[in-house]
């Protein structure tokens, strides 16, 4: 047995995870936390759907509904979808480029803990006087008028977790630029790596406006500033702009990694290299670029005037072109291929038409004059669930099945996987397709109830039934995970048999140093190339030598904890005398932790060549 897989006590394992800087463990942490928030957000969605099942329903009160609605959107976007994707990026991207770790293992851990503490802070609002209730967009006039501390939880929680995401983005960018294995040129990188790269760049540029916007909101609410108060010269539209300058790129931050995941799955299970690889890369970059030019399409009805509306309408439509390139490239990857319908592939295949539907309604929304009708109705709700659930969530579910063996060394049950898939797909279309019509028939979004006899009954009940299908699907997935983990049947390097990129060339799960010797990459789909030449392993690019590894650290946890404490202080500063001291205390914890990190030299450690050889023997034995 190798040393690292020895059985450890619960305490030791816990401590290991609290201090880990290993990208694969951080990936698991992201997955667990993100999965937890996904179920939470899903439960909130169920509350929404139950409340709206029949007219004049009293399942929840009006005020509570708004809290649920806000937390559903915020949780799903910031605490579920994005972190889960970051988890897969962490798990897979370094392996795909043949790296031993990410560029900044320490920051990687810091990013995770910031996200987690931000998310916990946000969700503690449920128990501390009420959750935020101004929608995930938290438009300024309402978010300033909202009573209690809900919106403060929103602002401070997102601020903290936003820092985490930003750090994660920078980390991935540097990793991809600096840590590629010999021969892994940019145009040989797997598409998931490319989309990680572009999504990270989007994070880098999109999060600062959100940071600024949230600072303004916090200052206005807690420190007496007047950014959004028109009577003091302020202007609420500034919030709308800042939010959407962030918000629109954010949706591409979500969908691009999803595109990457599907590109991998489709080419794997078609046994074909990706059709039009370079145009795929080009389209990815172009989508990222255009993503920054279109934010005002969320503000068509704000009153920006016809010139601005027209410019942003046309710019928005332009995004259909690179996205279309991708759709057709996927189709033609499968064309002439040898398609095997595994669970991940089922998701990938059904993603194409599902996302297409959401994409084309996006273009319909871009028709500014017609958007005056669609805006803030269920048509928009239908649009974005089609792209998000039909794109991002399907990708997450697909990746869960696809990469599970790589991350945990054991396969999820295919039969249960397919049941999950069918239930989820049917439920998804049932829930959201009808919502297009509800919107057009005059149903605004964000309403806690609707009145009878307005023609909205049937659509809503259908939609609710669909949501239950999705819930059952998710429960079956959870059962599948439990069963699989208990059985724990180990699999080899390339359990799907059709792996193409580097991650499939090493053990499942990979040893903590990933590659004993860095592999030599000779083209796109390097592992496939070697397999086609009858080899089982990658050709190494370097002789066996010592491997340098970073030390574990508890500091990331402490830095994040400090901000978490400080946030409470900032929020209760005006209510209680202990607020200010706690604020200062929290900031001190953070600063001192950073200080410790700065002055304590941390050179990491080396795994010696001899141990690597020993381990090899141990494994073979």
């Amino acid at each position: 047995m190798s040393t690292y897989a020895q059985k450890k006590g619960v305490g030791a394992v816990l401590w290991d995870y609290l201090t880990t800087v290993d990208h694969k463990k951080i990936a698991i942490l992201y997955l667990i936390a993100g999965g937890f928030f996904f179920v939470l957000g899903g439960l909130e969605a169920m509350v929404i759907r139950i409340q709206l099942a029949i007219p004049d329903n009293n399942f929840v009160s009006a005020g509570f509904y708004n809290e649920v609605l806000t937390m559903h959107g915020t949780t799903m976007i910031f605490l579920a979808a994005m972190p889960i994707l970051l988890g897969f990026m962490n798990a897979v991207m370094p392996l795909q480029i043949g790296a031993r770790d990410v560029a900044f293992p320490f920051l990687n851990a810091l990013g995770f803990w910031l996200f987690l503490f931000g998310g916990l802070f946000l969700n503690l609002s449920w128990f501390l006087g009420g959750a935020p209730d101004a929608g995930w967009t938290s438009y300024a006039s309402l978010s300033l008028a909202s009573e209690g501390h809900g919106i403060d939880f929103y602002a401070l929680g997102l601020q903290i977790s936003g820092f985490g995401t930003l750090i994660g983005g920078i980390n991935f960018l540097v990793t991809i630029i600096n840590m590629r294995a010999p021969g892994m040129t940019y145009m040989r990188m797997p598409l998931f790596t490319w989309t990680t790269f572009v999504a990270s760049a989007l994070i880098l540029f999109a999060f600062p406006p959100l940071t600024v916007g949230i600072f303004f909101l916090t200052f206005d609410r807690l420190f007496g500033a007047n950014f959004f108060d028109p009577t003091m010269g302020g202007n609420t539209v500034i919030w709308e702009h800042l939010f959407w300058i962030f918000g629109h790129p954010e949706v591409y931050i979500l969908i691009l990694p999803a595109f990457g995941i599907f590109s991998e799955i489709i080419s794997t299970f078609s046994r074909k290299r990706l059709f039009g690889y370079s145009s795929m890369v080009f389209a990815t970059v172009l989508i990222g670029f255009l993503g920054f030019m279109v934010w005002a399409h969320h503000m068509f009805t704000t009153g920006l005037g016809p010139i601005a509306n027209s410019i942003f309408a046309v710019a928005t439509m332009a995004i259909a072109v690179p996205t279309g390139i991708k759709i057709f490239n996927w189709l033609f990857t499968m064309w002439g291929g040898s398609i095997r319908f595994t669970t991940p592939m089922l998701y990938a295949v059904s993603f194409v038409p599902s996302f297409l539907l959401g994409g084309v309604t996006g273009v319909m929304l871009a028709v500014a004059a017609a958007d005056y009708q669609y805006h803030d109705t269920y048509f928009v709700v239908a649009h974005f669930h089609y792209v998000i659930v039909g794109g991002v969530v399907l990708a997450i579910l697909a990746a869960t099945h696809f990469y599970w063996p790589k991350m945990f060394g054991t396969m999820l049950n295919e039969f249960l996987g397919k049941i999950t898939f069918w239930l989820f797909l049917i439920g998804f279309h049932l829930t959201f397709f009808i919502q297009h019509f509800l919107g057009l028939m005059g149903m605004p979004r964000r309403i806690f109830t609707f009145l009878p006899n307005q023609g909205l009954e049937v659509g809503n009940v259908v939609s609710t039934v669909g949501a239950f299908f999705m819930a059952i699907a998710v429960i079956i997935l959870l059962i599948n995970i439990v069963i699989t983990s208990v059985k724990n049947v180990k699999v080899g390097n390339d359990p799907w048999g059709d792996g193409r990129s580097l991650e499939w060339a090493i053990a499942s799960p990979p040893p903590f140093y990933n590659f004993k010797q860095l592999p030599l990459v000779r083209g796109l789909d390097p592992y496939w190339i070697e397999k086609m030449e009858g080899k089982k392993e990658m050709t190494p690019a370097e002789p066996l030598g010592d491997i340098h590894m970073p030390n574990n650290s508890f500091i990331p946890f402490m830095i994040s904890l400090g901000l978490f404490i400080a946030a409470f202080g900032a929020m209760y500063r005006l209510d209680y005398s202990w607020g200010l001291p706690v604020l200062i205390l929290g900031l001190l914890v953070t600063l001192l932790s950073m200080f410790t990190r700065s002055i304590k030299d941390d050179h990491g450690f080396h795994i010696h060549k001899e141990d690597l050889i020993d381990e090899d023997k141990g494994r073979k034995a």
Partner: protein
Amino acid sequence: MANQQSTSENPRVDLDYRRKKNAEDMRYQVITFSLMIFLTLIAFAAVGFGDLSNWFVVPFILLLAVVQVIFQLYYFMHMSHKGHEAPQLFLYSGVLVGFITVLAFMTIIWW
């Protein structure tokens, strides 16, 4: 995974050469600095003394600021040196996004 720096056969020569190069760089930087101070002076003067029209002064001082920042970036922050391709790409992307933001805030937020 340390990355080897290429050093020539004779370290002494190499060292002298580098010292000279550094000194030369430093000279450029001092010149840059003088230019920056000069530009700053002009900007302040344009606002402080001349009875110039705003339509001239505002774009003019903005231009001076941009020039000065370019000096700062390329000489003080060494963006002119090799190995700064990725920094350039990302800095300019940031500038572009920032520019669009400023433009939007000056045109489509009501007064």
